[in-house]
């Protein structure tokens, strides 16, 4: 796996500390599902190659992914009546007795030094037929991601929804108090494993945002004691300061074509307005001019519209404006506080932070029907971010006095918590689909 280090800014600030892979911080704590989980069996994969074992227990990773989705109940290995290694070995009546709907079998074969082949087949137990089967190359460094891809294919075949197990999540952690305070920007797999700290600072880090090719992150850092916006390339660790105007530089979000950032500038007088930065020409275009706070801009999937938070009517509400400028139009009217809008990748829904009878909660607004569905149950939930399949969201909440992350299905029926091992975990952002 690539080691992600940040290098370019070391000379600029002593506050920036170099780091390598982080200790595991996210561990699955609760899986809460509503409705019936579908029983499936992921049979331990066969292994052929040097040594006793495959470099990764692929079946375990797939079963954990499906379990975590809240929609499936993978059978314990100890309850399996048989452990077939090939399709011909499967006795479907054994699985019917256990009420198992679908069976996955597979094999990891070593074909060279650090070269493996992973194959799997998914069977429909009731019809006794194969639904999907693939063989994929892998190395010790990539086999975990390959296992997530298998889980994605199985999930899509069984639900009709594209899986997001092979995607990533970026988030910010804060640990310690006073002069020991340490902020980190972390990227992990969607299951919380395989974490890499890509930047650390004794000053706050905020508002990470993925580029559409999932190769870069934009974020706000106070490492020079004022806010600036950086774009960091994950593979190289190179980081470029793209906005450091006088006053506030905040809330960056990439346009769908990756060429622009919408961001918030405050200026000397502290009037926060939505601006668009062309990353190639480095030219800023001011989109809003209202004296109120205008911030938290985000793009519609087609790039034509920018949604943002503004308190021009008193409290914060969501507005939209053409991405080339124009007259903003109010979008939310339900309640006294609606902020931090994020569009679903399919463009149909708007996630936001909604004040619900004294509690800040994640809500999703159907842009066609205009109704608001409250998805979370905490007191201070924030930073909703859609998974690239538009079916699940991740957000920050508080538990036991610290920040943790939760995911919830867009219908609100399946929720689960990822608990932080260290410090406050906040501002999760789900990556786009990875390119292979």
């Amino acid at each position, binding site marked *: 796996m690539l080691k992600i280090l940040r290098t370019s800014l070391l000379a600029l600030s002593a506050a920036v500390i170099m780091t390598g892979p982080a200790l595991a911080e996210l561990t699955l704590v609760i899986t809460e599902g509503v409705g019936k989980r579908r029983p499936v069996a992921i049979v331990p994969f066969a292994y052929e190659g040097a040594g006793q074992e495959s470099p990764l227990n692929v079946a375990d990773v797939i079963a954990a992914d499906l379990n975590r989705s809240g929609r499936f109940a993978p059978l314990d290995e100890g309850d399996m009546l048989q452990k077939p290694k090939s399709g011909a070995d499967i006795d479907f009546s054994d699985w019917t007795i256990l009420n198992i709907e679908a069976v996955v079998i597979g094999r990891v074969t070593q074909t060279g030094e650090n070269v493996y082949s992973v194959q799997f087949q998914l069977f429909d137990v009731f019809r006794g037929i194969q639904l999907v089967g693939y063989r994929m190359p892998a190395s010790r460094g990539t086999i975990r991601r390959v296992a997530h891809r298998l889980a994605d294919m199985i999930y899509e075949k069984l639900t009709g929804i594209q899986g997001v197990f092979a995607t990533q999540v970026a988030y910010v952690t*804060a640990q310690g*108090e006073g002069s020991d*305070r340490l902020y980190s920007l972390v990227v992990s797999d969607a299951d919380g494993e395989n974490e890499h700290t890509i930047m650390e600072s004794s000053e*706050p880090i*905020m*508002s990470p945002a993925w580029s559409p090719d999932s190769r870069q992150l934009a974020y706000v850092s*106070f490492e020079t*004691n*004022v*806010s600036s916006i950086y774009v960091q390339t994950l593979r190289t660790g190179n980081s470029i300061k793209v906005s450091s105007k006088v*006053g*506030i530089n*905040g*809330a960056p979000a990439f346009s769908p074509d990756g060429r622009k950032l919408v961001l*918030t500038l*405050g200026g*000397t*007088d*502290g009037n*926060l307005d939505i601006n668009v930065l062309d990353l190639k020409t480095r030219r800023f275009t001011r989109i809003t001019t209202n004296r109120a*706070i205008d*911030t*938290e801009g985000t793009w519609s999937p087609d790039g034509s519209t920018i949604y943002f*938070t503004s*308190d021009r009517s008193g409290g*914060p509400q969501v507005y939209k404006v053409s991405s080339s400028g124009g007259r903003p139009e109010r979008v939310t009217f339900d309640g006294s*506080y609606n*902020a*931090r809008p994020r569009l679903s990748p399919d463009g149909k829904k708007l996630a936001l*932070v909604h*004040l619900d009878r004294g509690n*800040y909660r994640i809500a999703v607004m159907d842009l066609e029907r205009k109704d608001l569905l409250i998805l979370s149950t905490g*007191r*201070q939930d*924030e*930073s909703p971010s859609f998974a690239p399949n538009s079916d699940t969201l991740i957000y920050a909440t*508080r538990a036991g*006095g610290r920040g943790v992350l939760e995911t919830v299905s867009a219908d609100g029926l399946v929720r689960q918590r990822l608990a932080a091992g260290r410090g406050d975990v*906040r*501002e999760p952002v789900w990556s786009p689909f990875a390119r292979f």
Partner: protein
Amino acid sequence: MKLHNMILTALLALTLAACSSPTIPDPDRSADSGMNDSSRGADSSGFGDEDLGPGEDVPFDSMNGELTMIIYFDFDQSELRPEYADLLARHANSLANSSRTSVRLEGHADERGSREYNIGLGERRSQTVRRMLLIQGASAGQISTVSFGEERPAAFGSDEASYEQNRRVEIKYTN
């Protein structure tokens, strides 16, 4: 210039005192104090006259590094509490009297609500303080503002006592 300043200050203090209401007692702020503990009006019990306000007898010593002063705000407010008028007048005077002195106003919010919006709320508080200093004779070039929103809490609890300490502007002398 100075006379004008003092008159303005006095007028302002009078106006604000006229509409003052009972304020929340100062919580223990020792945890977030800088190097000017002795300057805290709250400790000057011998002169516990309400009119003096919490900023009485603040020694400005820009030679000895940063000197922190903290102004607290009510929930969801960026308006200045009347009790701070006198304090800010003294800061403004200090700046007006020394053109080489400058301050950095660091605005903060409590943790409730959305983070980037809270950056906006913190900035709004910094700007309130900035305007008061400008009105009373400081020049624009002497003042810079920054907002940390909810990112740098002074108190870490999720309760009203902590929130009160976190809704603040810290005045820092930078030379």
